């Protein structure tokens, strides 16, 4: 990605820690992010890889403005908005898929009118058919993730932050979801993409950040970073087997 494009979102020396209990960690403080600096350029697709619990979700939450850093600054370009897409945006099991989709769309910033106009598309894309009118508690896991993915897909914001939403549904729906996602990602949309599916990250992202224990350990070309990351995982597995 050319660095001449304008910066949409910039993090400078961002640390985030919070109080847990008196007897653990560093005097009861848990450090999730430590001195993270990064830039997000207009129109690029940035991938974030890393093992569980290294701070990926927290980093997305800081980028989305949900959490404020304990230290450091987050600068968003004027007039831009960011939204975090994750599965299951507060689904209410007793309500129908339609009601849940309406609520989720409105929570993601649509007006009531816009949200209502999305419903037909959501019903069609999610392939839920008559189940769309049934309570979500009767849905299978695959059906709820299909609904969640489709609802999330309808959001239109300047910066899309995507947290692990491609592992949804059966093979057929996953293919469709991926295609829809790729269409968004390859367009002018600025995207930050977190996933355990390293192949997808490599394929879809222009640039990748590798996060380890709240620090950025590598940043750059998606192929180089993802292969270094995959190598480290393999090495880790090998070491574990040896011991």
């Amino acid at each position, binding site marked *: 990605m050319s660095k001449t494009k304008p910066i949409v979102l910039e993090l400078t020396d961002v640390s985030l820690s*919070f*109080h*847990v209990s008196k007897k653990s960690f560093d005097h009861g403080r*848990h450090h999730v992010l430590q001195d993270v600096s990064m830039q997000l350029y207009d129109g690029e697709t940035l991938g974030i890889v890393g093992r569980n619990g290294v701070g990926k979700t927290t980093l997305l*939450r800081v980028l*989305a*403005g*949900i*959490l*404020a850093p304990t230290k450091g600054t987050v600068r968003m370009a004027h007039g831009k908005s960011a*939204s*975090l897409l*994750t599965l*299951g*945006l*507060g689904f*209410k*099991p*007793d*309500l129908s898929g339609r*009601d849940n989709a*309406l*609520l989720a769309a*409105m*929570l*993601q*910033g649509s*007006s*009531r009118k816009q949200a209502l106009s999305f419903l037909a598309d959501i019903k069609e894309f999610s392939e839920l058919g008559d189940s769309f009118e049934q*309570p979500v508690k009767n849905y299978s896991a695959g059906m709820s993730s299909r609904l969640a993915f489709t609802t999330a897909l309808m959001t239109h914001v300047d910066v899309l932050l995507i947290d692990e939403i491609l592992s949804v549904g059966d093979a057929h729906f996953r293919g469709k979801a991926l295609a829809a996602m790729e269409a968004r990602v390859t367009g002018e949309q600025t995207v930050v993409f977190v996933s355990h599916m390293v192949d997808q990250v490599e394929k879809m992202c222009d640039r990748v950040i590798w996060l380890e224990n709240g620090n950025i350990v590598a940043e750059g070309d998606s192929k180089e970073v993802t292969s270094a990351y995959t190598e480290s995982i393999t090495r880790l597995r090998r070491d574990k087997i040896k011991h």
Partner: protein
Amino acid sequence: MSLLQYVHLIDIMARMNLRADATRFFLGYIWWILEPLLWVGVFYVVFVTIMGSREADFLMFLATGKLVFVWFSKSVASASSSIVNGKGLVGKIDVPKTLFPMAVVQEGIYKQIAVFATLAIILVANGYAVTATWWYLVPLLVVNYVVIVACAFVGACLVCLARDFAQLITLGMLFLMFTSGIFWDVRSLDAEKAKLVLDLNPIAFLIDAYRQIMMHATAPDMLHLFTIGVGFGALMCVMVLVMRHRSQYLALRALTA
């Protein structure tokens, strides 16, 4: 988020909560009317059948006090836990944190409409007349709403800071129930004590005002009502500003505490 969007969202969240509630129970929406009727039924059994009070007045006195108080106590208690209970959502989107308690308060309003309608019917059925004085209910309801919202905001922030406050709020509601003149008449105290209770406890004043209007066709002390409205209105505005400026801190507390 525009104000219109915010208002729509509160309304939708409240109505969805109600719908979810209604589908969970066999009797669904009937509970809205059944619950106040059951309260009156319980009072009838305890105070008329067991304790032998012959006064229909007393039953209406209790019903008015209790049903007004329940609006306040239920709304504030559940709104207090609303941000923490909504942490699934709090961790995913940056919405104004006031949205959570506001949706719960709105839910309470919809239910309370049914409760007040039931109460009015019971009062009329027991020979109380609907008079022009009932217009005073309009400012009274507005002030009551402002008091609920202000307390809901304070409670929701406190519970975010430490979950322990939820226990204290429950206990506080019990304390208020006994000190707000629901089971006894503030006006039966000597003048000095009555003034003290009404001055110190706005809930006691509000409950007494409902009774004065609906049972005795008497206008409440409007200056007192206005003072309560302004005081809690100011508290509400301060809380909106606090919750707006500390939104991310509240999110962190809700997610990690």
